[in-house]
């Protein structure tokens, strides 16, 4: 029989162990963010947001270089992905929440989780085979398709949980006043779960905006601004995560600093959408 004192001592020790672990786990977060900010802040200036990257010699000769085409490209690819993925993700989410008895739903749920668990690099390969190979070249559109596969399962799941949060009685109320089912969903349930749906979009955006692997062989990257606006869709397009990768593995010191600066921009994008999504959920919780 262990004495009471011993038992309390164990309790205290375990609490201490858990607390120490918590601090240890949070340390990398602080280190990584502060390194990115400290190393990259020097390269953040007007040139960074207005100039294109150009060839390495441009940076070596001290001419102004920046990542304006990269920042625009990130938004172009990610919004394209969002537009492609949204109807399918919403459809799957509505399917899961509004037709709970449907025979396909157990399979749909498993497949959604499976697709979510698939490595992003495979989604890139899929987009390569579906878009790059038939179209005969790397393109921003291919990158959008690749990221759409990343967003799709996240959107489906977040839509499902957003719609599930709406009390069932609201649906019954809609049916009771004589609305057909599709009107109940589109005019009552979807508007009522707007906050949840937007949160889902933001989370999907935040997840996809940091993905580099699927973009390396779909949108490929580009050191220059495209000549025409169609170049954003049909030509190779740059994006922050994959530019970050190529800057980091490049042998030029000037480009490394640009890489850290790109890291700041990317990190702010991710953290910003993350925080906005969090705030939206919190507001919903306390309402």
């Amino acid at each position, binding site marked *: 029989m262990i004495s009471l004192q011993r038992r*309390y001592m164990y309790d205290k020790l375990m609490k201490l162990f858990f607390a120490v672990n918590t601090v240890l786990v949070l340390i990398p977060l602080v280190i990584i963010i502060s*390194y990115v900010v400290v190393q990259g802040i020097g390269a953040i200036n007007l040139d960074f947001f207005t100039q294109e990257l150009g060839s390495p010699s441009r940076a070596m000769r001290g001419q102004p270089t920046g990542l304006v085409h990269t920042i625009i490209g990130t938004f172009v690819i990610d919004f394209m992905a969002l537009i492609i993925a949204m109807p399918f993700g919403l*459809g799957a989410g509505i399917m899961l929440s509004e037709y709970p008895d449907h025979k396909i739903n157990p399979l749909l749920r498993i497949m959604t989780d499976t697709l979510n668990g698939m490595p992003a690099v495979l989604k890139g390969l899929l987009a*390569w085979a579906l878009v790059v190979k038939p179209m005969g070249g790397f393109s921003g559109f291919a990158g959008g398709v690749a990221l759409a596969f990343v967003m*799709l399962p996240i959107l489906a799941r977040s839509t499902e949980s957003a719609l599930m949060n709406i009390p069932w009685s609201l649906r019954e109320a809609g049916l009771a006043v004589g609305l057909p089912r599709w009107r109940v969903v589109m005019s009552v349930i979807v508007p009522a779960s707007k906050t949840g749906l937007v949160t889902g979009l933001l989370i999907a955006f935040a997840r996809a905006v940091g993905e580099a692997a699927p973009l390396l062989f779909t949108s490929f990257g580009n050191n220059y601004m495209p000549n025409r606006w169609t170049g954003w869709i049909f030509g190779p397009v740059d994006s922050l995560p994959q530019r970050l990768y190529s800057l980091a593995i490049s042998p030029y010191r000037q480009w*490394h600093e640009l890489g850290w600066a790109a890291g700041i921009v990317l990190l702010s994008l991710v953290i910003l959408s*993350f925080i906005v999504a969090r705030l939206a959920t919190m507001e919903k919780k306390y309402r």
Partner: protein
Amino acid sequence: MRKGNTTISTSELLRTPPGPLYRWLGDGIFSWTVFILGMAVIVSTILMAIVLYLDGAEAFSRFGIWGFLRGRVWDPGSSFVFGSLPFLFGTVITSVVSLLIAFVPAVAVALFTAEYSPRWLSQIIENLINLIAAIPSVIVGLWGVFVLAPWLRGTIYTPVYLWTLDNAPSLLPILGNPIGYGMATATLVLAVMIIPYTTALTVDALRLVPREQREAAYALGATKWEVIKMAIIPYARGGILAGAMLSFGRAIGETMAVAMLIGNRNTLPFSIIGPASTMPSVIVNEFREAVGNLHLSSLMAVGFYLFLVSLAVNLVAAHIQRKFSFTGGRAV
């Protein structure tokens, strides 16, 4: 029926009430549209398997499905012989070891947030943990390349290497050269990256433990730690295991940080801190510069195996979750 005490059943509710034809038409069109859109998820998962298999067919027919899996040589340079064993090996070792490193701290953090800390603190910790999960892989890789790898080389690998050189030179081949980029570095970074997933999933599992389960243990005079040990962990076991499995799946598929830190050596890894490769890392590193169709096809074939491994891990996780979440309470 899911919510409220109503007498109408879900399936009854789903039937379109009687009315003019256009009502039936509207509902029919809507449900079919949603159905077809939703099928995209299923189709894209299946399509992924088909595409990877078909594009890898050339490699499979040249080396055989088993021969490719077992092949130890990956040589795009001269002999054009491709085998995926080095990558399979690198992937399994880095993922398993990183999970072993990450598991205890991750569960500890989850227990601290869910059981010990006050509500306001656990909110903060949970948000910070989720923030770690949100840091893009490529940024972690960037930090690893410029900060962690040089630091590890200078502070840990080289002293250990020198010590081994003086005292046990026969161990040197197992240890490997202290270049900083290699399996150990990649594994460490992987561990940091999967801790947030494991923690979040464990917290979810702990939140599902009913209050009565805790109260019963407290009523018997148990301390908090004893409650956790005897009442909470046995109940949440399934959820925690499934969470670990899903994090393992993440580690398998983690690409950019690993590709930047593992050193990319396409032979069977035999040293701890030396360079190696994983399935995602070789795809990312070689796909753009693939030499010829056979090389490309071989990379696709590696992708196909990666698909199978991820699929297996995901299905096992789902199975564990389903099996244990119902019996966990009774089977203490």
